[in-house]
């Protein structure tokens, strides 16, 4: 039988100390990655530290050219939030396409970003929107934060507090979803800023990454025509039971065109 202790701290400091004193501890946010992993014995923590009651991890606010979203904000909240819709409508649409309605009622932005599943959707937005990941210990630029499959810059026990997305002139996400899991077989997030275009790709490789050739082409001409025929190098991409690297390389070009059309 599974067995673990459970802590319900109310502050970041208490959460950090519950984690430090909890043996093999894990934070739990929405639990929609962690609990399936515990059920299948992929994770066997001694202690779960629940972030649901920790102050300061929720809230959505625009501050200058940044849209800040608290780590514990659910996908459903982002989907329906007026501030998000006004600042970065493409981000609200991305959230609306995660999993299914019941998953969106529980899953959180912070949970996705801490987990960094190579097929998750939000990492593409965080990277393309040049976001800042703010934690209880400091902050990271998105370019430094993601470090490959399930790997991030977070230290053991570090807590994501909120994400600050840079508000673009235009942005959109397109994903080819796996029909059963809803995760991205390939997803492409395009963001146009006054000083250039950023393009991030998820699902295709071992972790989210920027697509330099697409960024260069789109920065001079933001149109599908500018990237027509552009594909990724399939040498770096995933082959699994769902799709070959070659298929993913082609799909990335198709998703890129879709994202540009939607931006």
């Amino acid at each position, binding site marked *: *039988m*599974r*067995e*673990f*202790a*459970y802590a*319900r701290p109310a502050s970041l400091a208490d959460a950090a100390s519950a984690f430090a004193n909890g043996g093999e501890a894990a934070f*739990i946010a929405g*639990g*929609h990655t962690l*609990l*399936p992993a515990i*059920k*299948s014995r992929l994770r066997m923590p001694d202690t*779960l530290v*629940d972030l*649901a009651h920790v102050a300061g991890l929720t809230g959505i606010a625009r501050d200058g050219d940044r849209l800040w979203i608290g780590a514990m904000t659910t996908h459903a909240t982002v989907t329906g939030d007026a501030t998000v819709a006004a600042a970065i409508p493409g981000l609200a649409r991305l959230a609306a396409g995660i*999993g*299914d*309605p*019941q*998953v969106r*009622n*529980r899953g959180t932005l912070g949970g996705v970003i801490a987990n960094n599943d190579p097929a998750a959707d939000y990492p593409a937005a965080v990277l393309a929107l040049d976001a800042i990941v703010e934690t209880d210990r400091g902050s990271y630029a998105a370019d430094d934060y993601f470090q490959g499959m399930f790997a991030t810059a977070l230290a053991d026990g570090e807590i994501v507090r909120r994400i600050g997305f840079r508000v673009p002139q235009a942005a959109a996400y397109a994903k080819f979803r796996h029909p*059963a*899991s*809803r995760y991205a077989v390939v997803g492409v997030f395009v963001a146009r800023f006054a000083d250039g275009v950023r393009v991030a790709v998820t699902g295709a490789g071992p972790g989210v990454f920027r697509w330099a050739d697409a960024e260069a082409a789109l920065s001079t001409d933001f149109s599908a025509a500018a990237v027509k025929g552009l594909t990724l190098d399939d040498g770096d991409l995933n082959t699994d039971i769902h799709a070959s690297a070659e298929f993913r390389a082609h799909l990335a070009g198709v998703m890129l065109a879709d994202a540009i059309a939607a931006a």
Partner: protein
Amino acid sequence: MQTRLTINGQDLSREVAPATLLVELLRDELGLTGTHIGCDTSQCGACNVLIDGVAVKSCTLLAVQADGKAVTTIEGLATGDTLHPMQAAFREAHGLQCGFCTPGMVMAGIEIVRRRGPNVDAETIAHDLEGNLCRCTGYMNIIKAIEAGARMMGETANA
């Protein structure tokens, strides 16, 4: 861990092992076996319940995470002998065959009305059922049932 919940309108305070899933508390400890377990991967929706009126998968939530909240299961929808409009619509529209997925489908239907309103169209219903699997019906009658249930919920609300 001492946990307090309201389940189908009744207050409950009891010791719950932290690793207990909400669905395990409901089924194994409280005998509320209307909530089903159809998968091990959080994908089928047979376990959907309402927490403070919002549909969630009770197989992917610890009972202790529901502390202080109001849980509604399929057993708690009817008022005496009067079925909830969404339940009545499933019976009317023949929205089930074996019935295994039905409790989760009814909860998903109520969730769709909460988010989309009572005039939600069939296409939206089909899309929003992406987290619910049925091995029998081919979904068409489930969609019809939810559409009819939504309208009835609208009428009840206006009555």
